[in-house]
């Protein structure tokens, strides 16, 4: 048991692949905005955990995202501020947290977990933002880029959570919830594989 725990801990803190994005600086604020958005949207390792959070929040409560959004937004802003102190090790963290969230959404009736769900959501979004801006300080990345990153992250979150909510409202059958829990299990399975590949590459 201790050996397994030690191995797991070693794997968790093992340096990840250096995936820091080399942000460019453009003359146009709009181009900077698009770059920030693209950093998130073109990275499955960042998108998948956010999808997991969205599904979990929407399954937790009907207005789950709305209730948790303040906390989630604060977490992403905090991540923007703390990204300077992160290194390559941060790459694994959103994958691990996304996996935990997706697995919980698949296996556990989330309403029973109460405030733990938005807390996990906040931690995951914090980790996603830290990983997006890995190692970059305030002066290194244009404000418009940061806004683009924030926008894209929350757009994905809102779109996915909205899809879950709309489907549950339109098809208020238990089967709808089951299908989303199956989807969450698939997300978790993909994240497990992604994490394994990341560990192998490290």
């Amino acid at each position, binding site marked *: 048991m201790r050996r397994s725990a030690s191995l797991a801990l070693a*794997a968790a803190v093992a340096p990840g692949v250096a995936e820091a994005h080399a942000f460019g600086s453009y003359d146009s604020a709009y181009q900077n905005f698009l770059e920030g958005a693209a950093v998130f949207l073109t990275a*499955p*390792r960042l998108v*998948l955990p956010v999808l997991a959070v969205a599904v979990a929040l929407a399954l937790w409560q009907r207005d789950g995202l709305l209730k948790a959004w303040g906390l989630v937004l604060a977490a992403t802003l905090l991540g923007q501020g703390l990204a300077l102190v992160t290194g390559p090790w941060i790459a694994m963290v959103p994958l691990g947290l996304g996996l935990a969230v997706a*697995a919980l959404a*698949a*296996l556990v009736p989330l309403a029973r977990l109460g405030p733990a769900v938005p807390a996990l959501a906040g931690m995951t979004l914090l980790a996603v933002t830290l990983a997006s801006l890995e190692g970059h300080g305030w002066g290194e990345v244009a404000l418009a880029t940061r806004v683009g990153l924030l926008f894209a992250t929350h757009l994905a979150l809102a779109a996915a959570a909205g899809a879950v909510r709309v489907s549950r409202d339109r098809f208020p059958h238990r089967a709808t919830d*089951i299908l989303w*829990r*199956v989807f969450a*299990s*698939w997300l*978790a*399975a*993909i*994240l*497990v*594989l*992604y*994490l*394994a*590949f*990341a*560990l*192998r590459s490290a």
Partner: protein
Amino acid sequence: MPSIMRIVASVPLLFIATAALAHTDANAGGFLSGFSHPVNGWDHVVAMVAVGLWGAFLGNPAIWILPVVFPLVMAFGGALGIIGVPLPYVEAGIALSGVVLGLLIAFAVRAPLWVAAVIVGVFAVFHGHAHGTELPDAANPFAYGIGFVIATGLLHLAGIALGFLIGSAGGRMVVRAAGAVIAAVGGAFLFGIA
């Protein structure tokens, strides 16, 4: 131009050569690679169909819990294979999964949910580990993972669809016969016949 003439005029387009789709290594480790992995062996296929079949046989909530547990735990087994953690008797475990799950269906065994989940989970580790160790080095984890999970899910769905036959007496016979076939296939792999 009359619509029928438009259709006739389009016929020659059918003979225009399509893009060369000869397999290259360009997609090694991509979506198709991940999708084909769970279906490239009958020992894998019968076990995953059996999971869906047994879940349908056990009814709610096993009908969806088992197909949730299997891909999740299989991915965990795959992760162990990818990072190189050894697991003994992998092929025997895979073959045994067909035998055990097939017999459970053939004999209409109604296990408690937690027992069924544990049985399915244990065998899922073996299946996943085998896929993980066979993975090409140049794999795209995102595309591979999606293909892998979708293929597994579709096989479960096939089993579930077949399992809905238990609504009738004749259907139950068909399902139990399918379980016997699954067990036989598993046994063939276990004893090296297949």
